[in-house]
């Protein structure tokens, strides 16, 4: 249930993203467009480049949309406030990375309070992501699209069956398992060495 602080527009965006599939794709775009002005506000407020502000804003929208999709956005604040706070911390991260660090009076812990911990962040290091991405290219275009539709965009198996021309749900599910297995086999051959200490 939405709290009184949420507005109709918030509800539309949240419902759209949580619906998954084509709706999610459309409403994430809508979220990006709706608060696009933040990008320029962040740029001037933090004195960062437009390129940096653009990256920070994209990352913030992605983070927020994933929290919404996973039902982790609790609606304690308006969506715009929540997005702006995450975007704010992304901008601060950029400033922190600069060699000539300006003093930023912020506690790093605050950002983590906004975004709930995700088990996937613990199994992989940032620098290993590019390597991981290449494995998806190796399993074939159809498998890659199927896994993305299911695992990222949240299409349900009936939609996937229809979109990809499988005769029914069962075939789509079976194909999903095969594709995951292909990917896991590739991963096990090049087992990513980030295992220890992450359990």
């Amino acid at each position, binding site marked *: 249930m939405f709290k009184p602080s949420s507005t109709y527009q918030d509800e539309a965006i949240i419902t759209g993203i949580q619906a998954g599939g084509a709706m999610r794709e459309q409403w994430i775009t809508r979220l990006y467009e709706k608060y696009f002005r933040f990008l320029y506000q962040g740029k001037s407020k933090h004195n960062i480049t437009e390129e940096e502000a653009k990256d920070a804003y994209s990352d913030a929208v992605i983070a927020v949309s994933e929290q919404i999709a996973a039902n982790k956005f609790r609606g304690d604040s308006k969506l715009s406030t929540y997005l702006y706070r995450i975007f704010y911390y992304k901008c601060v991260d950029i400033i922190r990375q600069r060699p000539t660090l300006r003093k930023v009076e912020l506690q790093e812990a605050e950002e983590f309070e906004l975004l709930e911990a995700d*088990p996937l962040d613990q199994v992989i290091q940032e620098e290993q992501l590019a390597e991981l*991405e290449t494995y998806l290219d190796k399993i074939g275009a159809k498998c890659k699209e199927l896994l993305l539709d299911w695992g990222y965009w949240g299409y349900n198996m009936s939609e996937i069956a229809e979109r990809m021309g499988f005769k029914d749900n069962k075939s789509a599910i079976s194909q999903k398992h095969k594709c995951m297995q292909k990917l896991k086999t590739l991963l096990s051959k090049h087992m990513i060495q980030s295992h220890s200490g992450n359990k």
Partner: protein
Amino acid sequence: METNDHIFDLVEKYLAGDMSAQEMSVFEQRRLDETEFDEEVLRHLQARAAIRAVGRKRLKENFEHIYQEKKASATDRRRSRLTGVMIAWRVAAGIVLLLVAGGLLWQLLKPPSPQTLYAEHISFPSIPGVRGTVRSDSLAWEKALRMYERGDYQQSVELLEPFSSIDTFAYRSFASFYQGLAYLHLSQSQEAIARFERVERPGLYTEQVDWYIALAYLQAEDIEGARAALQKIVDQKGHYKTAEAEEMLGEL
């Protein structure tokens, strides 16, 4: 022997946060005690992390596309205003020098035409989910959306018609919205408005439909209709096009 499919379901349950405290404790303990189980779980999590990384990358590419479009559209607007000002100056100088009657000046300084406003503000969203990859050609629905993406708007409106007119079709609003946009592409403003009005209200497309109806009136050079539609946007608190609508109302 436990099947990989069973572990698959278990890890998905874990990721979705659907495990009870007891299930979670058993799961974590097994990861500590059983090496094979733990490795399979880890591989599954890494596979999911890879999928998410590629999904994020795609999303960022989409955002980049929107950013570039918005930037280009803002630049065009600025350039067109600048050009207008330059022309006005030249004409003014001409008037002073040649003592030409003020009629010409009025022509150049008059408010922008509805068509000009339309051209300055229109931008079309692409259809989510149509990424030009593996799709079944046999489905009329997929075909209609694909035709839209390819720019074959005539075919697209024809193929979308049954979907936008069936009340029970789950994506009726989606179909009507894109059919409306296709009609805008074809400069058939009245048809566009009729399709936009088929979109369910309130609903996921309400704000976008308000905006495109206003643009459709501008395309049709119906100033009164456009004013009313823009005013409707301004009157709504927090509409995503409030600022643009206010600016356009000032210019009309």
